[in-house]
């Protein structure tokens, strides 16, 4: 017996070692690195860029060469060629927008409603909010921008909200002027099965209008011209703010929540945008990373089911959507058929940090909002690095991002009025760029909407305007008493 063991011992050991070695070799590229900070420092981090830039080069250029090269660069007699206006992809604020209408101030004209046109509740809210805006003007000859009375939100031909025969309707507007200075809102474009994000997929003749569009793709975004919009839920409130979860539940603390990362949503199994969600089960661990998908979508879902569907569908009902959101530190926001999703705004509202997996997606209002302060953007190809990335976010950062998410939600997205105000202020900053608001004004309290730059830049530089914000504090003293106190102090 002993000799038998000896005979087989050697090959067994070798096999074991080789298998171990092979496993190490195979999994090494996938080894994830956790970055743990011990001493984070108080405020300043070492100047990484400066260290690299201070590396001096040994090859210097002498003055003669410099002058010769410079001479080549001077091309004073270039012909000034404007962009080709007929190609709408090249539209920009100087060629497709008539600035002279805005020289005397910003104003919006809302066309009178057309009774035969079908208007969805959401577009009706948009029209109403703009009509109540401080920028409204009833004189179309002096207006800076125009808002059409036709609902262009849903341009998916297969959707019930789609208006047929609508393609050229906008061009019939009395002040259309090839769409210049008009604002066209759109949330859904493209359709099954391609779900194209190109501008032609709107099935709409919009000329030189500015598109305020959801699910914007980098490839079709006219930089500095279009505005990327979030997807608004249908029951979005008009003027009352939807409060953020922090205000309602007071759940800022504890910092680490029950779930680290969660997701609950449909999985399309095949077709456009299905890759991202199909792979989620690979990092689901049913402990602190809970990613639930269901294959049930539409009538004939079972025709396309894969081998994971049965299990996925069963597990799906074990967790509740809102409960997951409230108790998660991070919420995964992978693309679906289209690049944007309702989940993005929902996570912000719940104070859950969005982890976006949507390549070439232009985030909402990214011209002015620095999303790095509150969201994490990961390339879809790097799904397996998601756990490592979120683990490397320190408790302090997590807290800061959570508060930033609530601040951004409440300031720019918490009601239709806030949403529209943000869009109008972005337009103003684009036109009056010499007086535009700064990065810090947009990204930190109280937010940009309250900063009216016309009052900041007054003619006499020795006077200043004091803006007094009075909040309800803990003591519950009456508002009128506080105002009296403030007035007395400044008299």
């Amino acid at each position, binding site marked *: 017996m002993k000799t038998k063991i000896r005979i087989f011992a050697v090959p067994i050991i070798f096999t074991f*070692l080789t298998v171990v070695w092979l496993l190490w070799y195979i999994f090494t590229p996938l080894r994830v690195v956790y970055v743990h900070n*011990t001493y984070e420092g108080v405020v300043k981090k070492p100047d990484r860029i400066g260290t690299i830039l201070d590396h001096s*080069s040994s090859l210097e250029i002498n003055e003669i060469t410099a002058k010769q090269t410079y001479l080549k660069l001077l091309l004073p*007699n270039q012909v000034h060629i404007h962009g080709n206006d007929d190609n709408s992809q090249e539209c920009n604020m100087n060629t497709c927008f008539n600035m002279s209408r805005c020289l005397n101030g910003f104003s919006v004209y809302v066309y009178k409603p057309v009774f035969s046109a079908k208007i969805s509740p959401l577009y009706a809210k948009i029209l109403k909010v703009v009509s109540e805006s401080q920028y409204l003007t009833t004189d179309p000859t002096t207006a800076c921008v125009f808002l059409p009375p036709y609902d262009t939100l849903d341009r998916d031909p297969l959707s019930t909200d789609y208006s047929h025969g609508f393609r050229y309707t906008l061009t019939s507007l009395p002040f259309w002027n090839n769409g210049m200075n008009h604002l066209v809102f759109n949330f859904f474009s493209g359709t099954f099965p391609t779900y194209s994000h190109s501008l032609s997929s709107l099935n709409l003749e919009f000329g030189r209008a500015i598109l305020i569009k959801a699910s914007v793709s980098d490839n079709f975004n006219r*930089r500095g011209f279009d505005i990327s919009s979030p997807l608004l839920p249908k029951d979005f409130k008009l003027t009352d703010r939807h409060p953020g979860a922090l205000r309602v539940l007071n759940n800022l603390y504890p910092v680490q929540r029950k779930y680290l990362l969660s997701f609950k949503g449909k999985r399309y199994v095949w077709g456009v945008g299905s890759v991202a969600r199909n792979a989620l089960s690979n990092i689901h661990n049913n402990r602190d990373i809970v990613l639930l998908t269901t294959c049930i979508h539409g009538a004939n879902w079972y025709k396309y089911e894969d081998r994971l569907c049965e299990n996925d569908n069963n597990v799906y009902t074990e967790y509740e959507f809102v409960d997951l959101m409230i108790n998660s530190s991070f919420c995964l926001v992978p693309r679906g058929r289209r690049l944007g999703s309702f989940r993005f705004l929902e996570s912000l509202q719940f104070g859950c940090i969005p982890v976006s997996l949507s390549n070439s997606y232009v985030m909402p209002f990214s011209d002015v909002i620095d999303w790095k302060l509150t969201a994490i953007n990961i390339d879809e190809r790097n799904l397996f690095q998601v756990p490592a990335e979120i683990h490397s976010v320190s408790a302090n950062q997590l*807290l800061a991002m959570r508060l930033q998410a609530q601040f951004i939600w409440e300031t720019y997205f918490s009601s239709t009025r806030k949403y529209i105000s943000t869009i109008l202020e972005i337009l103003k900053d684009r036109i009056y760029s*010499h007086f535009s608001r700064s990065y810090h004004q947009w990204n930190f309290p109280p937010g940009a909407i309250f900063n009216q730059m016309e009052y900041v830049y007054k003619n006499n530089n020795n006077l200043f305007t004091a803006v007094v914000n009075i909040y309800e504090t803990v003591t519950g003293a009456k508002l009128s008493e506080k105002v009296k106190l403030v007035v007395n102090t400044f008299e």
Partner: protein
Amino acid sequence: MKKESTNSLPVSTYGIPILFLLLTISFLWYNYVITTETEYFPTEIMVNPPNMNFKLLQTKSCRFDTCFEINKCEFNQESLIQVYIYPPTDFYYMNNNNNKVYLHFNTSLAYRSLLNSIQQSPFYVSDPSRACIFILAIDTLIDSDNDPIYTSLALKHLPFWNRGINHLIFSFLPSISNSLPSVSTDRAGVASPGLLYHEYRTGFDISIPVYNFPERLATRKSPSLSNRDIYLLIIIPLEFDTSLEYTLQQIKNQDPSRITILDFCQGDDRCVEDENVNYSHILLSSKYCLLLLGYRYSTPDLLDVMMQGCVPVYIHADYMLPFEEVLDWRLIGVPLRPAFVPQILTILKRIGDEEWNQKHRHSLKIWSRYFSSLNRIALTTLMILNERVFPTLATSFEDWNLLETDLRRVNPLLMHPIPVADAGFTVVIFSNNNNNKNSLNSLIRVLNTVPSLNKILIVSNKRGTSPSGNWGVKHVPIELLIPEDHKLTNVFLPLEQIQTECVMSLYDDVTLTPEEIEFGYQAWREFPERIVGYYATIHTLEQVNTTNSEINIISTKAAFYHNHYQKIFTSHVPPAVIEWVDTFHTCEDVAMNLLINSLTNKPPLLLNFNRCQEFRYSYKEDSCLKVFIELFEPLELQSAKFHLEEV
């Protein structure tokens, strides 16, 4: 017949392990020896003969996720991308007579300088198999005058070209007539100035400046000290557009002595109304410079203007500004839409002197850091690429733009959107001395009657017996914690047992009434980001050349502060400070005060019950305050008078 000896084992038994051994060795050999082709790079490459059917290939839809292989970029400790530069090679084709015809490529000094910078940077690797980014040896800058058709031909035949994926091509100027670029870049990324918005592939290309060769403008005058009251505005028309002439004259007529229009005369000299001027000096003498950047931003004037400290007023149009990916140009200059050019004087006057000063100083800083040499331009380009590949370690907006860190980004408590809920507070009693047990008991009896108290934690740091016993009939939950070591900083350990937002740090030799404690808690709720306490010490720093500064430190023997500070004390206070406190067994309150001050820039709050004590520490003694202030950099101590009284 002898049985076969059990010692002679069949061949297969030893054959299998030997086979595995051979397999293992061959794997290792393949992995570590054969694939490194460092030594071998062809000195000559043959290309197809150039023909008339030249097609310009540039994949417009290329983006980071479609035309960049991120797998090639291995993660390393410093998270720097690996950049490889092709060695110089000759390219030839065979003509009809079967002779070698060599393609001739110039290499300008500028390009050589660029390559030299990259080679001496920490990004460079000499092994192409480890490369994340490939840089060409062929000069694609305009002053090399290399034929774009030949260049495109050569590129296609490079050994690692792979349709240009992961390659970065530098260009100083785009071609004027066609869309950019004239070289067939296929799927390579392009670093070029003057890219129009619809040509620039976001997240893929990089917008670089037109280098201005600062030696041309070298003067002995300092841009920050020169007299800028001579001119308010210099107008630099860079495009020859007659329609503008009238508008510009109108502007000049509004203030003729302080506005001037530059023009080109013979060669590269600048003129004002046909009289030569010293371009460099005139830029030093004006506050603002209006740059009428044309259709293609193709001249170095933007950098000239910045370098001389003249605040650029640039036309806000549809072309990318240098390093627009990371730099905020509104901080450097004034963006102006063409429609507002006639109103420029009104606008400039409304901007005012203070903001001019800020932009002026900022331009100089930014020029110096990112634009002052080809080396810096090349390395900044690579840094931007680096942050695309490793986004989690990306530099913040404030660091790129050399701004002071906004504390609201770093300290979440400054962003608290809602008043702190009235959820009560936790007391951490620090029992350090061998005090009378009775004082601890009476303290707890007092605490029991405070309405908002949630929990009592006793951190017993003393050697010997621990307190126990009855503290009253009905009391709030009490927990006793005995840390392993007897460090003074144990009072600030991030204890899991603290579940309220408010923490009160209390020493067992303190006497307070329940009303005072409740008032303190309510006061804290109004100012949750600060430290609120009953005892203050005044430290006086006698400094040599400046006035003495007095600093109030709220003693942590009776103080309220947010649980967040308790949690981050050990990770955010410099280790040297913690070591100092534990070694000398004092000044823990100074450490906590300085931590909170550095994260809020606000003073602490003293509850005025006449419990002030004065301690004076002079600069000469090695006081903890002086030591800590140096370690906690940066720290701006401001004077403020603030105290709360119960009414």
